């Protein structure tokens, strides 16, 4: 029973992490229909940025954390400005191929700057963050992952539902030409969605780095793990992404714990296929409104 509970907790916090990573992915897809294959690398860049600020620049953790988030946000803006904007109006497949190229470029850049070794952050999360639930103890980093996941989900939910900017972002996703005819600044919306996506990705990169160390290959692989998550949850639903992420997270830890660690990475994909057979739009994807 203790083992089960431990797996459950691990699965949930892993799920929240995937959810955070997926949130940024969904945001870009929602506003511009671009599948961002460089998501894992952007996430890794955030983790490395934090590492540099904490270990090399010796900044206090909280300052370093805020600076890396700002840095990721700006990086998102810059990526959109330099690489994506010239391709506005071109077929989507070009843009998607471009993100594949970006992924390779960023990976190379990271290897060049930091090398391929495994780094670890100094231990900075305070001990009081850990939770004891009966027989199981939840390590601080998992608690942090769950809390941050909840907070951001709430912030984004409110942002998209009530703020003007959030509504404009949804309107662009819905009907770009109509949004343009009403004076919505479509390019600014794209830039903002990339920036927010990079920010969230950077944050999940930092938390993943705390859990499993910082290594380009491991971190960028999470970018791929995002695919089953978002397809499961529905490509354009942020809430769906979180649910999908929880399912994948739990599946992973339970197969790892009860069946075999080797199957860990396979079972989510198998499950994905079955769910898609039943619900092709994902669990919470937008069902195309068809007027007849």
């Amino acid at each position, binding site marked *: 029973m203790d083992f089960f509970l431990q797996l459950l907790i691990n699965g949930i916090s892993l799920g929240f992490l995937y959810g955070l990573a997926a949130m940024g992915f969904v945001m870009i897809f929602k506003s511009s229909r671009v599948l961002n294959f460089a998501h894992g690398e952007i996430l890794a860049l955030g983790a490395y940025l934090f590492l540099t600020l904490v270990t090399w620049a010796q900044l206090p953790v909280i300052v370093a954390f805020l600076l890396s988030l700002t840095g990721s946000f700006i990086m998102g803006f810059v990526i959109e400005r330099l690489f994506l904007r010239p391709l506005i109006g071109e077929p989507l497949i070009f843009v998607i191929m471009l993100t594949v190229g970006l992924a390779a470029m960023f990976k190379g850049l990271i290897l060049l700057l930091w090398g391929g070794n495994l780094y670890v952050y100094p231990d900075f999360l305070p001990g009081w963050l850990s939770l004891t639930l009966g027989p199981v103890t939840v390590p601080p980093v998992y608690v942090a992952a769950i809390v941050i996941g909840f907070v951001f989900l709430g912030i984004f939910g409110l942002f998209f539902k009530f703020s003007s900017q959030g509504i404009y972002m949804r*309107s662009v996703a819905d009907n770009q030409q*109509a949004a343009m005819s009403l004076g919505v600044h479509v390019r600014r919306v794209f830039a903002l969605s990339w920036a927010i996506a990079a920010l969230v990705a950077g944050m999940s990169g930092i938390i993943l780095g705390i859990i499993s160390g910082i290594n380009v290959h491991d971190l960028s692989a999470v970018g791929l793990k995002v695919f089953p998550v978002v397809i499961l949850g529905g490509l354009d639903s942020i809430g769906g992404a979180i649910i999908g992420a929880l399912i994948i997270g739990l599946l992973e830890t339970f197969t790892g714990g009860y069946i075999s660690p080797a199957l860990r990475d396979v079972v989510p994909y198998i499950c994905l296929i079955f769910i898609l057979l039943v619900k092709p739009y994902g669990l919470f994807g937008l069902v195309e409104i068809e007027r007849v």
Partner: protein
Amino acid sequence: MKDNILLQINNISVVYSDVIQVLKGVSLAVSEGRIISLLGSNGAGKTTTLKAVSGLLKPENGEVTDGNIEFDGKPIQNSSPETITRMGIIQVLEGRQPFKYLTIEENLRVGTATRWGKPYKRDMEMIYEYFPVLAKRKKTMAGYCSGGELQMLVMGRALMAHPRLLLLDEPSLGLAPLVVREIFQIIRRINTEQHTTIVLVEQNANMALQIAHYGYVMENGKIVMEGEADDLKENPDVKEFYLGLAASGDQKSFKNVKSYKRRKRWL
């Protein structure tokens, strides 16, 4: 009626993808506070003319290659839609393009994109006063509304921007005659109460000429006729081609048209 010219189109040519010429020297003038209607058959270039004004040609790879467009004395040809909408020109696109997954209320809020501080509460009341149907369906996703409601929605959405010049592209498309009448009455009310200048593109020439002050007829990318709406209504050519009446005033019968009979065999 004051005769201050708000929009002046001088001899513009529009080319799509560098090769397809759609407009070949179109000129027209729109006086402030009036309703101008732009008539013509499919493919005459009416929509392209509107898009040239609102800046929506660019995303479709179209360009004004010749001539110029002046709004309030300032040249606006080939400007971006963001700039043009902020000057007060809002186009209501053909075929009702709502944001399907946003509620009616959220759709209306997008209309405030061009305005400072994005105020929406008071304007929303005004829109619901013009279109009471929308008030009842505030929280409904637009994708589930009927055609008439959607046409009112997209017009209301444009009004939220407080436009000085409203470009309406075929508001009667695919709507029941009663709804069409209601919508045209509202267009007239908007014009008189909000002092919004309106350019109305229509296939329904009869309806359009009833509310318009002045009209232009387009064919093959050119303006072929223009005049006060009342004169156009009486013009024998307009009667025959757009109002469906023979020169004598009788209803035209398709029985007399040979080509129609011949075509029928193939159908």
